[in-house]
């Protein structure tokens, strides 16, 4: 569904991502983990077209989307839940969701899409006329995911959705991911919570220093030696 | 950057100005052009004065023409012959109306007043940066213009000051412009200038290194005010007449645009910008009056009237929009490398 090959991104002269290959099959949940500064967010931004890759290609359902502007990538069917949620705190919850409709390819079915999000996240529905800044961190995260979903993307990219959330709320968010996948959405999940991600995802890539280090399967979640190795580098 | 190579950077601006002075004074060109050359040199002085603050601090000032205005009015009012003052500026304070000074003294006075005014204004204003600084300096210009345009105790008020001695000859304009460039160069390579430039690149790091940004900016602002005052003195002695309008919006815009066209980040940029825009201006002016042969041949008639205004404005707008870093891209002058020149020479001889 989503295929990244030979990706390289530079800020100035320093490469933040080097020769990265990854692929996400239709209906899969794929994890991407790694320490701070590994280049995970940069990878997602390159897919979205928010930063320009200096080499490599990005293909969506077989056709290249490299070099397209973010608003075009969204219309091609990719949605991002950005790091730190990036909720518009001065707008109402409902207005935030309506912003997510901007990327829809067709205006038909908007109401149904909103309904589905309200069903998935009842708290969002309850607080829809309040200012988004009044929501708790967990509620804002649900809003951010909902905002990406109302565009009915084929591929959902999430950048550290569990950042700063209480453990019970993390459960809610990870649970929602399974429900979203069940609706047929393909997911690329960037996380710092390695263990949970590896356990949830069909496959998890480990990145550090801009490069892919290894790929883990769900079975590795219990293997603490491999997990430590993944994080601190193997020989 | 080594010291020797560093001082080479001064060669370009000085040579360009000296060349302008020499070309303007010899028979190479139409003597009628002499005034255009003088005007260009005075523009260089004003733009370089502006650059001393804007270029080194990275803070924009829309108020610099205030200091040019103060210098111009001081030098103008104080050189009108005493005998004529009762008719030309009857409202003056007695001590202004009863005295006049010579040319050089008036230039010195212009520099001192410009510097003092900038210092006083700068003490509160240098705490601001960004748009707030831009608007506040602009407000200073508004106040200066408004008072100069109305207060008859210190100048002609809404009238025109005339009979100002036209003492800015080509030699004085050239020396004046070179002097301003030399001071600007000395400043930017001094300890103070380097500290301020460091704060332009990275204010937080500069502050951490113990640089008092407010004070460094203030020095630059005052120096730049003094140079602007001097340039104002040169300007008024070039024109021979002065109205508050002459040193207000149009001049502000023109000098800022010259600076940005050349490249805000370097002294060379300030000089190139002022000379390039002045040259275009003079060229179009002459083409309009049918004095440029090839334009006449090409069009079959002189350039239509008003091309000059539109042409200069268009040139500046185009450079600003498409080359936001200016013609010099913010770099200082450097000599072409000898090796490369030789290679080119060989190529062309082959």
């Amino acid at each position, binding site marked *: 569904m989503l295929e990244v090959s030979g990706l390289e991104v530079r800020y100035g002269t320093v490469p933040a991502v080097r020769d990265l290959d990854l692929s996400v099959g239709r209906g899969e949940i794929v994890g991407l983990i790694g320490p701070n500064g590994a280049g995970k967010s940069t990878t997602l931004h390159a897919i979205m077209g928010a930063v320009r890759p200096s080499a490599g290609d990005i293909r969506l359902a077989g056709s290249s989307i490299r070099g397209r502007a973010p608003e075009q990538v969204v219309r091609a069917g990719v949605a991002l839940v950005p790091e730190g949620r990036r909720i518009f705190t001065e707008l109402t919850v409902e207005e935030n969701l309506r912003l997510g409709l901007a990327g829809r390819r067709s205006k038909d079915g908007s109401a149904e899409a909103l309904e589905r999000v309200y069903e998935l996240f009842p708290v969002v529905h309850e607080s829809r006329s309040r200012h988004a800044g009044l929501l708790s961190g967990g509620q804002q995260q649900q809003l951010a995911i909902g905002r990406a979903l109302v565009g009915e993307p084929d591929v959902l990219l999430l950048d550290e959705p569990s950042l700063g959330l209480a453990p019970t709320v993390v459960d809610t968010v990870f649970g929602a991911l399974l429900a979203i996948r069940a609706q047929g959405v393909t997911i690329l999940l960037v996380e710092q919570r390695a263990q949970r991600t590896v356990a949830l995802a069909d496959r998890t890539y480990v990145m550090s220093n801009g490069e892919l280090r290894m790929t883990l399967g769900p079975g590795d979640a219990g293997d603490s030696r491999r997990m430590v190795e993944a994080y601190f580098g193997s020989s | 950057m080594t010291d020797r190579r560093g001082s080479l950077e001064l060669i370009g601006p000085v040579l360009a100005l000296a060349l302008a002075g020499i070309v303007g004074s010899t028979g190479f060109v139409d003597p009628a052009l002499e005034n255009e050359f003088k005007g260009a040199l005075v523009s260089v002085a004003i733009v370089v004065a502006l650059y001393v603050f804007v270029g080194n601090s990275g803070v924009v000032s829309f108020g610099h023409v205030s200091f040019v205005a103060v210098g111009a009015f001081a030098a103008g009012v104080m050189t009108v012959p005493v005998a004529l003052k009762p008719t030309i500026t009857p409202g003056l304070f007695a001590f202004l109306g009863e005295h006049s000074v010579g040319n050089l003294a008036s230039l010195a006075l212009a520099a001192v007043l410009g510097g003092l005014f900038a210092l006083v204004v700068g003490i509160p204003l240098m705490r601001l940066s960004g748009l707030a600084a831009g608007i506040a300096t602009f407000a*200073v210009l508004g106040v200066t213009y408004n008072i100069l345009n109305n207060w008859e105790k210190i100048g002609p008020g809404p009238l025109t000051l005339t009979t100002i001695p036209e003492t800015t000859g080509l030699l004085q304009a050239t020396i004046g412009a070179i002097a301003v460039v030399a001071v600007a160069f000395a400043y930017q390579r001094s300890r103070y200038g380097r500290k301020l430039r460091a704060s332009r690149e990275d204010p937080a790091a500069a502050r951490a290194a113990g640089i008092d940004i407010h004070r460094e900016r203030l020095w630059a602002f005052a120096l730049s005010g003094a140079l602007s005052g001097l340039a104002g003195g040169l300007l008024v002695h070039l024109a021979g007449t002065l109205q508050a309008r002459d040193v207000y919006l149009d001049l502000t815009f023109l000098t800022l645009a010259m600076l940005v066209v050349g490249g805000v980040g370097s002294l060379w940029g300030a000089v190139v910008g002022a000379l390039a825009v002045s040259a275009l201006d003079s060229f179009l002016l002459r083409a309009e009056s049918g004095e440029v042969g090839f334009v006449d041949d090409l069009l079959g008639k002189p350039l239509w009237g008003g091309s000059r205004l539109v042409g200069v404005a268009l040139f500046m707008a185009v450079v600003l929009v498409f080359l936001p870093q200016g013609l010099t891209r913010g770099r200082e002058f450097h000599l072409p490398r000898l090796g490369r020149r030789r290679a080119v020479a060989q190529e062309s001889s082959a």
Partner: protein
Amino acid sequence: MTDDVQTLVDAVALGSIYALMAVGIGLVFGVLRLVNFAYGQLIMAGAYALALTNDQPVLLSIALCFAVVLALSLALELAAFRPLRRASPTTMLVATFAISYLLQSIALVKFGAIGKIVVVVPKLSEPVTIGGVHIRWITIMTIIVAVLVFAALMVLLTKTTIGLHMRAASIDPATARLLGVRANAVITAAVLVSGVIAAIVAVILPMAVPERLLVGPDFALRETIIVLVGVVVGGIDRLLSATLGGFTMGVAVGLLSGYLPSSGAWPFTSSVYLDSAVFMLVIIVLLIRPEGLFVRGRHAALERV
């Protein structure tokens, strides 16, 4: 007493005009982070369109004014604002300065330095007497039009999709684009709305401000300067605070010119020093609140050392 009421009503009308211009400038700043110094020249172009069609039916003349201003707005967006999108705010401001100068030069060359009289609806310049107070129709109209424009703008911004996109883009343009908000569409919309407001001001200004009865190359330039100052003083990164800043400037200018004597020997003692008084106030306000007078909290687009 009735004089006071008259002065106040006139001042509020002037404030309304300035507030309209402030909104026009603020809308574009919101989505482009660009302070458009050339805004006054859009108004100038509209006023020329009116002046050159004085003999035509009023509605045709006004329609032409709108067409000219909108076409020029779009041309500026395509030819200048778009290439400038990544430039620093200062470069942008100087560039719009250059554009303003360019448009003034073109007007000077094409129409000359002598102003042309603008006749829109002469009847509106006649006064009505309400409770002993003489107020010109245009003064009342100006206030009503401003209120209507702000109401319409509120509806546009809060009730329509493009309005929502405009608000989002001015708060956080990068995130808005990541959600699929089209940058170009939003900017074009803002430029057009801003142009509509400029055209409205072009129609009102010659009738409402007696010194603007004639349109020349520097038409609306002084207003633009004062409004820009007001917008920054009010707080440019919020539409409401920018508008309030413009409004306050207009009311202040109106009241000061109503109350200061028309002559005096020393600065600040007469209405000829009005600009000085206003600019001094501006400097003081900026020193106390560089982020803007009407901005609450830490939304500082303008940092200080």
